[in-house]
């Protein structure tokens, strides 16, 4: 499991996407051989996570002090699962209209991109937390080429006040 937890602002979008992109190339703790299928999976997963990150930073945390965006990634031989958790305002995905592509829309395409590129999309609305779960299945065939490193990794970006720890009074 790989975890990246960042403040819920667009300034941290690129950082989160780089972690997700790298994670799509891992199966457990092994790195995949490059392939067109892997590149496509990376492009589609990064696109979907990027749109979801935008939605949280721009809409869920609109008008309030932004909380965190917690991104958990599990990648195995069959699929990549990305779970994004926020504490902002929730929404009802069933009310979001499908864009009329022939009319060349200039916005409102985010959820369409997410749903189109992912094999499974589920959203559990809070409070206290909203959880978006994205699943992308791998095409058969990627072979691990490197066995190294720990089986879990965590990246946390903190800003402002020092995070409290169990040792603090």
């Amino acid at each position, binding site marked *: 499991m790989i975890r990246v937890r960042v403040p819920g602002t*667009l*300034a941290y*979008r*690129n950082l989160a*996407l780089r972690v997700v992109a790298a994670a799509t190339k891992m199966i457990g703790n092994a790195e995949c051989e490059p392939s067109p299928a892997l*590149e*496509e999976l*990376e*492009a*589609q997963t*990064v*696109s979907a996570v*990027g*749109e979801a990150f*935008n939605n949280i*930073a*721009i809409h869920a945390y609109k008008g309030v002090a932004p909380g965190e965006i917690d991104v958990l990634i599990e990648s195995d031989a069959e699929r990549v699962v990305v779970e994004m958790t926020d504490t902002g305002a929730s929404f009802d995905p069933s009310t979001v209209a499908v864009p009329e*592509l*022939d009319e*060349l*829309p*200039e*916005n*409102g*395409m*985010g959820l369409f*991109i997410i749903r*189109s*590129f992912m094999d499974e999309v589920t959203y559990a609305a809070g409070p206290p937390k909203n959880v978006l779960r994205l699943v992308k299945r791998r095409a058969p065939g990627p072979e691990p080429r490197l066995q190294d490193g720990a089986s879990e990794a965590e990246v946390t970006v903190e800003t402002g006040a020092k995070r409290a720890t169990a040792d603090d009074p």
Partner: protein
Amino acid sequence: MKFAREDNGAETMLRIDGTLDAVSAPEIRPVVDAIVTEERKAVTVDLGNLRLIDSSGVGVIVSLFKRVRAHGGEVKIVGLRDQPKAIFKLLRLDRVFPTP
């Protein structure tokens, strides 16, 4: 993101490199507005070094396309590849933009 505009006679080349997303899209809006205001009629957008685009970035390109077309001009896209190409294909923009 980096971008560069170059005018050569009636033609305008706009090159966009890096990432065009919700963060960087506002930076390029004034350049797009200037191209439209000046009624440039032959605009080419070079995305050969564009690594990543999101729906906000697509919105900027589509806005340029629609407004240039509204005054009788044309916008071409060149160099589209990788993730941006996948997004353009999904949104059916590959059918809209003439590509050499």
